[in-house]
């Protein structure tokens, strides 16, 4: 073979090697992002359940007025029930989580919080609820950050052409109202190891 053919062969081999390296490392990156999203969904799920549990406990404590208690207890119960078989990116579940947020928002105005806090048991319940609200908010943010990174990588042309994401579904964000009730925002976030 002539020198030119050799050069061509070497060029093709190098290009192929580069392509294989790119594909392998990008597939690795994607796999890692997909796993990160998996765990983030589970982490969010755990924090959302913790939040509804805390809300329910507060509602059943007798420290809220009966109407607010019923409102919060109902919303929290529905959300926990949906948690049995729906993840935090399922619209039907997140709808119910938003409902919990709204119920808490309505039941826990600044004055309500002040009154509940006067009771030592109430203060503990509020702290737990606030800690759970903050953690759910953070977990949602971290999940959506992972989804954004994954979508960005998956929309690259080469990734699409080479089908590097395989059959993994297009990642979904978790969209719902996770605001911490304004009455609770004044407390400092407590945590324990």
């Amino acid at each position, binding site marked *: 073979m002539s020198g030119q053919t050799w050069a061509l062969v070497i060029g093709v081999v190098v290009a192929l090697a580069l392509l294989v390296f790119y594909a392998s490392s990008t597939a690795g990156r994607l796999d890692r*992002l997909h796993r990160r999203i998996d765990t983030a*969904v589970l982490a969010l799920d755990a924090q959302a359940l913790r939040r509804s549990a805390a809300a329910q406990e507060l509602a059943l404590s007798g420290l809220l007025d009966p109407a607010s208690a019923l409102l919060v207890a109902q919303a929290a119960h529905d959300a926990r029930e949906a948690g049995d078989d729906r993840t935090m990116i399922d619209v039907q579940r997140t709808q119910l989580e938003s409902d919990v947020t709204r119920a808490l928002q309505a039941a826990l105005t600044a004055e309500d919080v002040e009154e509940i806090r006067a009771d030592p048991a109430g203060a503990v319940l509020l702290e737990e609820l606030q800690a759970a609200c903050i953690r759910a908010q953070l977990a949602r943010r971290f999940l959506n950050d992972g989804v954004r990174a994954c979508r960005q990588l998956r929309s690259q042309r080469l990734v699409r052409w080479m089908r590097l994401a395989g059959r*993994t579904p297009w990642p979904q964000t978790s969209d719902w109202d996770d605001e911490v009730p304004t009455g609770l925002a004044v407390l400092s976030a407590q945590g324990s190891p």
Partner: protein
Amino acid sequence: MKVGLVCPYAWDVPGGVRSHVHDLALTLTERGYQVSVLAPAEDPSNLPPWVHDGGRPIAVPYNGSVARLSFGVKAAARVRGWIRSGDFDVVHIHEPLSPSLSLLACWSAQGPLVATWHSALDRSRVLSAGYSIAQTAAEKIRGHIAVSEDARRTLVAHVGGDAVLIPNGVRVEDYRDVPLSPLVDTRGPRVVFLGRIDEPRKGLDVLLGAWGSVREAHPDARLYVVGPGELESRQESVVSALGESIIFLGRLDDAAKASVLASATVYCAPHAGGESFGIVLVEAMAAGAPVVASDLPAFSRVLDGGACGRLFATGDSEQLALALRAVIGDLELQSRLRTAGLLRAKAFDWQTVVADVTAVYDSVSIPGERVVEDLRGQVVGRLPGRSLYARRPWGRR
């Protein structure tokens, strides 16, 4: 809960990131967390038991100054060993892109990883670190924290990703009830300046420009300058004209600095820029010193828009003189600023800050999860053996 903290800079050299990691580790330990810090060390025999030796640092130019970093094959092996033996619930990496133990930890660990971004880097510096390295490191981290809006912007704009804003903390109790400093004459009004003398961004020139006018109104006022550096010739003439009213104390340790602040009538921060947070303002407020500061965005934020301290137009000596004269001459204003400052400092107390940090720890992991060694990138990590694309519980069907 077992937490591993990674500090990229030498443990035996003072610095912002290093003291952040130190204070975070102390406060977490007080709260019952098991903490292990991985940091480079010049002299491993001097390390406290909770600091793991990350190897001898090498002085290299980085980020505009000389930093003491650990890298290379040996450092990488140490990081892997620390992660294997640590069995951590969370590993918290500081300054993840610094070419030291932090970046190595990003590569060799997987699981619940949290990172804190400290400095604001410009785009060219991030890119020079290698875009793909930055990207991969950022992708592996589950929760990003930024200590300032500027640091957050670095991440959002240049690397891509979202970060939770958790400001730097000050251990407020270290500044409470500090004795008055024997170095300070408390008979007349005392103005205190902290920072390098020959660093223009610390703004000593602006303060010297205002000092003559302050002296006219308050002849017994004294200016105490704490910080290293040599006077430059243009400053020397100003200083000699003002005579003994300016006292240079040189570099002081933290405790002596705290008591000088506690003895101050006014703490003055005439910085001309380059401050992304303004931790020194919080320290002054925690020590009970009324603050007069330039209106840099970071300072204005710390002082709650001027409610907890007096702001003046950055670089304007005339305005600074007016502000200093107003505070020195008004005892009631002083006590109001002092009270507001003490209250404000609490918002930046490590006890408050650490609660936010632990909330991040809790929200990045699922029960039972541990940080483990990441073998991808090693040959063994590329071998097949597990299904790469299992069916996901999430996503569109």
